[in-house]
């Protein structure tokens, strides 16, 4: 699968060339090796999952992609060029948006305002104009509000538009986070455990939204998830990590039958 032409998925979607490539990434915190020499690629239009047991280094990997961590060794290639060390906001400007494992919304602000913050990378009116709500700031906000409203409509959260986020149940907060990430119109959407702590119905809803986002906007999605059922159903290709190493990479079926993966998940007797 190293060709740049892409491939066609089982359900008939055309997957494009490489969007992001991780080359021999190693991440150390002092003496601790969180990620050890991992390489994989994310292709345009696919749903790519990273799975692994607790402490496998999944979230660290996501943080490398989002620019929160700079890898100790190795290179990140994005849209055909090597990415220099960057601040997270610079990565965001390049079209990478994310949600967080522990919800990171502004609790006192309304859903609408929270989602609007997702548009910050697209706003550049000056301070004076913003303060006076005049000229560029005004046109800009109107344009951005319309984009945000489309996301709100897409994720079916119209009824909580004006509700402060702090008053919402957990499952809805997760959806608002997704909305904020989507509002940034990302090329690559990173989801850190989007279904964690949800009940079955909420999981089903979220799965549908993830697929719809991919389908409707063609957004490339990279997600970390514990729920194996969800991962296998949603993703086109899966990277499996254990103790900071990559132990498997391929379609859900390939990964499911990989002996190393089975051992990592079910445990193996050392005799």
């Amino acid at each position: 699968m190293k060709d740049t032409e892409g491939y066609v998925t089982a359900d008939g979607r055309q997957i494009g060339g490489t969007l992001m490539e991780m080359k021999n990434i190693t991440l150390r915190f002092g003496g601790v090796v969180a990620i050890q020499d991992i390489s994989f690629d994310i292709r345009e239009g696919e749903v790519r999952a990273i799975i692994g047991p607790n402490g496998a280094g999944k979230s660290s990997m996501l943080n490398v992609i989002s620019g929160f961590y700079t890898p100790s060794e190795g290179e990140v290639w994005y849209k055909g060029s090597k990415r220099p060390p960057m601040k997270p906001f610079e990565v965001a400007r390049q079209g990478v948006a994310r949600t967080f494992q522990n919800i990171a919304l502004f609790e006192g602000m309304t859903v609408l305002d929270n989602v609007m913050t997702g548009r910050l990378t697209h706003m550049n009116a000056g301070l004076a104009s913003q303060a006076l709500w005049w000229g560029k700031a005004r046109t800009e906000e109107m344009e951005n509000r319309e984009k945000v409203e489309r996301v709100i409509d897409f994720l079916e959260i119209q009824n909580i538009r004006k509700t402060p986020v702090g008053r919402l149940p957990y499952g809805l907060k997760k959806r608002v986070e997704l909305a904020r990430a989507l509002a940034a119109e990302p090329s690559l959407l990173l989801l850190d455990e989007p279904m964690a702590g949800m009940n079955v119905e909420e999981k089903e809803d979220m799965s549908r939204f993830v697929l719809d986002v991919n389908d409707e906007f063609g957004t490339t999605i990279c997600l970390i998830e514990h729920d194996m059922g969800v991962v296998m159903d949603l993703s086109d290709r899966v990277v499996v990590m254990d103790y900071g190493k990559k132990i498997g990479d391929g379609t859900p079926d390939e990964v499911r039958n990989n002996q190393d993966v089975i051992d990592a998940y079910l445990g193996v007797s050392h005799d």
Partner: protein
Amino acid sequence: MAHLTEGVEGLRSIPALLARNVSQFGSSPAYREKEYGIWQSWTWAETAKEIEALALGLLNLGVEEGDFIAIIGRNRPYLYWSMVAAQSVGAIPVPLYQDAVAEEMEYVLDHCGARFAIVSDQEQVDKVIEIQDDLHQFEHMIYLDPRGLRKYDHRRLHEFSHVQDQGRAARDEFTAELEARIAKLDYDSTCVMLYTSGTTGKPKGVVLSNRNIIETAKSSSEFDHLKVDDEVLAYLPMAWVGDFIFSIGQAYWSGFCVNCPESPETMMTDLREIAPSYYFAPPRVFETQLTQIMIRMEDSGAFKKKVFDYFMEHARKVGPSILDGESVSTFDRLKYRLGEMMVYGPLKNALGFSKVRVGYTAGEAIGPEIFDFYRSLGINLKQLYGQTEASVFITQQPDGEVRSDTVGVPSPGVEIRIAENGEVFYRSPGVFVEYYKNADSTADTKDAEGWVATGDAGFIEESSGHLRIIDRAKDVGTMADGAMFAPKYVENKLKFYPNILEAVVFGAERDRCTAFINIDLTAVGNWAERNNIAYASYQELAGHPQVLETIQGHIEEVNASVAQDEMLSGCQVHRFLVLHKELDADDGELTRTRKVRRKIIGEKFEDLVNALYDGSPSVYTETEVTYEDGRKGKIKATLEIRDAKVVSVPSRQMAAE
């Protein structure tokens, strides 16, 4: 509104009314829908253009005159346009309930032989696709929201906007045909076909002609003085006749604006933003709103609560009288006005009722307290009685003559007749043409002279001329002395008390009435908690002397109210007991929709019924029950039977003993 009736000769179809509205109120809003957080609106002129484009698109797809077009989805302007576009090309719109499951839709689509369907979204598309292989005549489907449908097979599937685009592109080709088809529509053409929900057997397709709809819309609009600047919120199912009359019939006749909510969940917010001047809701909606207000007031600060209670009491005293234009002292009027400023105004605003000029409720009996609550706030809430077969209106309450226990006077143009057995018959210009492909049922319901049986028993109150509905005709019986026995009438009165969940009244062919009562565990349990009354089970609470005392009080109040009624005074409850178990569908005592199965209960608890009539002060009984896991068990109990005070009615000595 004299100018509205001038052209009535030419206005014999909905598309003709549309043309009139374009020329008379072209720039007034016809539709609004909240989308992307903003109320989008269409004037009558814009609406006509949209409908024309769709109608041309339908011609382009090959819609023939007389075809049926199913319309499935929540209230959206596009779907209302679809109905009118269908009529314009000589087809018949058939709106379906959007929450119907695929099999139910299959029956209807097969029965009418629909060739086309216009649906809202992927959910509905999926349902129709599931069944379309069994529908040999079905051809094309048009959908509104393309989300998730990108990869579907588009040979027989079309996006709404594309159909319109194609229609616009083919304007030159089809305009003459469209105009010819519109010109052919007359008073006898079918306006719409609506399927009745069908509590017994399969749904029936009620065919309503342009005459039915337009005549009804005309007279009911005049009855309530509906005008072009009225506003309604369209949120009730499009397949229901009421929505068709309000949102199409009356809206096209009067030219007022139909507002569609953003989503079902935002209904209450949208209601507040629109503040409709003409509003309809079933009693359930009013009940829920009232409960919410009361719960929130309980949670508010002591001062606010006091102010609320103080002014609400005043409103209850004088509000309805002020609304009915009766004489009220100047002091009370001033106090009411102060209350309006402090409580009623803000409350109505929060509910979205600030501008309601005419509000209707119908469908089932509404609790008098609920009804009076809204009226005391100055909301002109009225009742109407109607049926699909009548194009809704049979009777309605005129302003100033509103009561919770009647359904009003015959609507303009409607004649009412009460049969020997008490069943209500009506005849009007709104009476349906026929049940589609069902001549037998048509003949059973409508006689040669056009009288239609309602299936409800009722009578015309002599003092006021208002119709009062008592019960379903088949449940009404006679007592031993020949007096009318209407159990549901009494049961409904009892059930208005929050403490009473169910009531079963006996008395057919007997000399007096008795009742079984089921307490409402939530309400009574709440009361027990507040009064430190310990109980371990439903049975124990149901047998508590204080509970029996309370229930007895309720029954005596109901007796007093029933006694006021000259025809039904015999139905006062003489003796009652509180059942030791909740009536349950699992035990066959209720239907799955929680309707009492009178006969089965009477047989199952025969010992208890006998005890009610033989005068014994208590009765021992054993009852078999089915637990949720299917096991069976026995409940043993000794029930106390109490006598309730009855009011003696001079003219009916026998009933009162």
